């Protein structure tokens, strides 16, 4: 397991691949990200937000903006450190239950899903051991 983790950390990020993925869903994701009014009204619809004493980092919009939003902002030029940071946001802070509610009608789970697939394409994902021990957080 350690070897896999080491391998994950050492491998350089394939920016070209990320850019390709970003371009594929540009029309949808850019519109979603740009139309989010940052109103925070989605907060109460997330049970993780409610369960964590209303900690803002569990807000659905926060999770989308700080994972996929950041990748789009940097136009795919992200380093492994940032991707590892996002790993916690998209796998630990969100369980993709799909219950988040946006007044404007933005489908937040699809953004988190897309962020997960980008991370997975760079081999950044929680290992089974990590999940059970929660050491990857």
């Amino acid at each position, binding site marked *: 397991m350690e070897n896999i983790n080491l391998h994950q950390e050492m491998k350089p990020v394939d920016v070209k691949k990320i850019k390709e993925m970003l371009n594929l*869903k540009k*029309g*949808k994701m850019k*519109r979603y990200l*740009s*139309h*989010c*009014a*940052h*109103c*925070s*009204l989605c*907060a*109460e619809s997330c049970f993780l937000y409610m369960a964590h004493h*209303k900690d*803002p*980092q569990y*807000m659905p*919009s*926060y999770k989308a*903006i700080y994972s996929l939003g950041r990748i789009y902002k940097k136009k795919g030029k992200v380093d492994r450190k940032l991707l590892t940071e996002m790993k916690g946001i998209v796998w630990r802070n969100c369980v993709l239950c799909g219950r988040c509610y946006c*007044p*404007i*009608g*933005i*489908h937040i789970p*699809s953004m988190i899903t897309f962020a997960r697939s980008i991370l997975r394409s760079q081999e950044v994902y929680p290992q089974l051991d990590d999940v059970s021990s929660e050491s990857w957080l």
Partner: protein
Amino acid sequence: MYAFIQGQLVSIAFFIFILGLIFQFFQFFKLTKKKEWIYPPGKVKREKKTAGQWVAFCLASLNGTLWKTDPLITVVTSVFHVFLILVPIFLLGHNILIDQSWGLSLWSLPESITDILTLVFLICVAFFLGRRLFLSRVRAITTVYDYLILLIAAAPFLTGYFAYHQWFNYDTVMTLHILAGEVMLITIPFTKLGHMLFFFLYRFLIGNEYSFARGERVW
């Protein structure tokens, strides 16, 4: 410069605003396609409701909306958005200008009422600003851009209020008022303010309540 802002730029702004919205509208339908149902939703035969039952149904379904979690913001945001559209359209001064140029005009509200409505609108803006500044969960996702968007939405009303009460130099305030309105019109199709159109378009993607066409489209 003043002549340009008060003359040509108005037409340019409306031109960009309308063409931009049309572009975004067709772009949305180009980017999305009709959903291929795996399990098509069954056709539910709707029972006919009397007016009383319908009102009761509407009031009961309010509990499933933001009204339940945050009544204050629901009221403030509804008032904000309704006034944002209605006040400029039914303002006497605007209708006189339309009448002078096209010879037709809409029904307009008395000036004393629009004055109060503008003030209420500005209070809503202050509420949003306060939320952005003091609520930690809003501050967590706020950027400078959000303040700018709020300013773009509020500036025409603020300057209009100043102009009506003739505070400061009237000509300057009036020019700023026209400029602010033009900036808002131009930015609507291409920025965060695009939710004016996309609020409705996104309903085509939602396969549940509050949707159009049973959410028959997917990206």
